[in-house]
Every structure is written in structure tokens, then in C-alpha cells.
């Protein structure tokens, strides 16, 4: 009997390892909510979502959470004069862009954390030099407080300039689904992680819930 139980445990562990992941996890805080369905109250899970926002892109178009309705998107934080990790991040992000730029249901948004220098014309010039065209990849300008606040929703930390005149920020790419839930975070400076992001976007796009959401 004991052997049998052990066998079952071993098998199930092996099976768990073998299982090819066909669904991504949902990250962030979650809390139970009580809903009334058909007169009965049921407990459901409410996942953390990205709240509404208002920023302006490199074409001076206003972008809100509504602009991303029905889209899977990747977000990151950067600034154009960043001498350290940003060139690496956006060299890697270009691979994501190239893979999905013709996909109308996909977006990349890059928030500048230095809105004073990175004005809309500066962002447009940066986009041009990066070879970014069309509406797949938006570089977003906004009030500094708004940007720093929204960063928290993406589980990111950004800070003001330190005494050496440098901004501190995380180099993560955050994957958001059509329900505005966080489905993955990837180290944007690591090409291998970014390859995984590209693979995960394909998995996410194929999830029934995502396919059904327009």
C-alpha cells in the first residue's frame, strides 16, 4: 500500500514536470470577492489589474487604458538618455516588435521616467531612429507622478534621479492580457528571457479566454 502511494506521488510529480505549459500564471495581488450568481452567493477570485491611466504617445495622441482594450501588451520603463540598461532593453524589445508588429491586437508601451527631457518630439525622434513605425510600439509621455504611480501597478520600482544624476529603474518587460492582468515579468536585458516572452505571448494569444475577448 505504501509503495502504491509512493508510486502515485512519484508519477504525479513526473507528470507535473512533463506537462507542457499551455496557460500562463496570473500574477499580482488577488482577493476573494463574493458575487451573487442565480440568487446564490459564490466566492470568486479578483485579480489585480492595471488601473485606468492617461498618457500621450510619440504622435501626440492621447492613450488611455481604453486604447488597450482587447489588446495583449508589453510594458516597460525607460528614458532616452539612459546610458546603462535601456539600450540593451530596447535592442531586445526590437525582437518583440519585429515578431508582432503586424498584429493589430498587440502593443508595446514604453513609459519614459524622465518626462522633462523626453518631450513628445524627443520621443518621436527616438522612435524614428529606432525604426519604429505605425502603432505597434508607443512611447508614452506623462506627468511624472502618474508614471511613477502606474509603475507600482506593474510591480516595478522607479526612482528619482540619484545624486549622480541617474535614474534608477527596473529593467523588466511586463506582459499584460486583455483583462489587464499581469501574466509575466521578464528581465529585459537578458535575450533568453526576451525569447521566453515572445514564446509566452504566443501561448497567451492562444488561450481560449484571450481568443474570446475582442
Amino acid at each position: 500500500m505504501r509503495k502504491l502511494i509512493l508510486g502515485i506521488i512519484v508519477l504525479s510529480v513526473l507528470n507535473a514536470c512533463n506537462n507542457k505549459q499551455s496557460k500562463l500564471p496570473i500574477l499580482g495581488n488577488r482577493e476573494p470577492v463574493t458575487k451573487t450568481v442565480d440568487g446564490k452567493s459564490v466566492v470568486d477570485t479578483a485579480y489585480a489589474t492595471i488601473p485606468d491611466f492617461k498618457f500621450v504617445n510619440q504622435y501626440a495622441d492621447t492613450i488611455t487604458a481604453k486604447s488597450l482594450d482587447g489588446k495583449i501588451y508589453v510594458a516597460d520603463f525607460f528614458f532616452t538618455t539612459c546610458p546603462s540598461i535601456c539600450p540593451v532593453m530596447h535592442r531586445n524589445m526590437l525582437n518583440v516588435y519585429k515578431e508582432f508588429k503586424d498584429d493589430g491586437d498587440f502593443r508595446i508601451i514604453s513609459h519614459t521616467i524622465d518626462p522633462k527631457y523626453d518631450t513628445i518630439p524627443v520621443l518621436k525622434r527616438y522612435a524614428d531612429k529606432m525604426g519604429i513605425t505605425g502603432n505597434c510600439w508607443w512611447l508614452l509621455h506623462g506627468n511624472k507622478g502618474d508614471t511613477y504611480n502606474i509603475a507600482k501597478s506593474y510591480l516595478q520600482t522607479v526612482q528619482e534621479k540619484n545624486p549622480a544624476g541617474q535614474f534608477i529603474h527596473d529593467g523588466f518587460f511586463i506582459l499584460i492580457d486583455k483583462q489587464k492582468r499581469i501574466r509575466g515579468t521578464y528581465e529585459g536585458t537578458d535575450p533568453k528571457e526576451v525569447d521566453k516572452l515572445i514564446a509566452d505571448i504566443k501561448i497567451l494569444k492562444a488561450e481560449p479566454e484571450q481568443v474570446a475577448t475582442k
Partner: protein
Amino acid sequence: MKLKLISGIFLLLTVLIVSCQSDEQVEFYRYYSGGSAIYQTHCQNCHGSKGEGLQALIPPLTDVAYLKNNKALLACFLKNGLKGKIIINGREFEGEMPADDLAPIEIAKVLTYVTNSFGNKMATINLQMVESDLKKCR
């Protein structure tokens, strides 16, 4: 016993081969390998692991003619940064490379690495050359 003899001969041969390398070659390898490490920490983020640059934002380091023609200025570019228009591989770049706080010997090593990688093939840029070039910085 036999093993000792064989390894002894082997050691002798290795010493002979190494000593056959000219002093210049030894100096080159010393600069080149040191430069490779400095490149990774100070340059690679922007210029890329293959010196490919980044789109039209950051120039590549593959313009053989540009590096040759500006050889005596390269040390100053690293020390003081570089600003304004430059033409690399026939494309115009206009941005700013920040100054980097490198010692002259580090500048010599990393320049030797760059000018002998990514399709470039120049001679060693040694400490003496860098020191004399740095005196002429504008």
C-alpha cells in the same frame, strides 16, 4: 617515469613555443584580452556584443575606415565623450556618447580590442600612444 619524461618534453615545447612569440604579439594579446573585459562592462550595453550598435541611435564599431582615419582621436573620444554629427558606414549619427572615467591603460586596452574586433584589424594601441594622444585632446 615515462609519464614524467613525456610531460617534461611537453613543458619544454610549450615554453619554446611561447618564447617564440615576439614581444609585440605578447603585448597585443595582453591588451586585447584585457580590453575584451573592459568592453563588456563599459561599452557593450550600447554598442552591442558584436559592435553592431543600435539602429540609427547608436553607431556600430564596424567602420574600418572611420576608425583608421580617426585613430589618434579615439582616446579623446573615450575620455571626453563624443557629441555631434558623425558619418559611420555611410549613415549619419547624431547623439551623445557620455565620457567614461577610464584610466589611460584601460583606454589603450579597450581600443586595442575594438580596433581588432568586429572586422577591424589594426595594430596594438599601447599606453604610450594613448598618453600622447590624450595630451592633444581638444
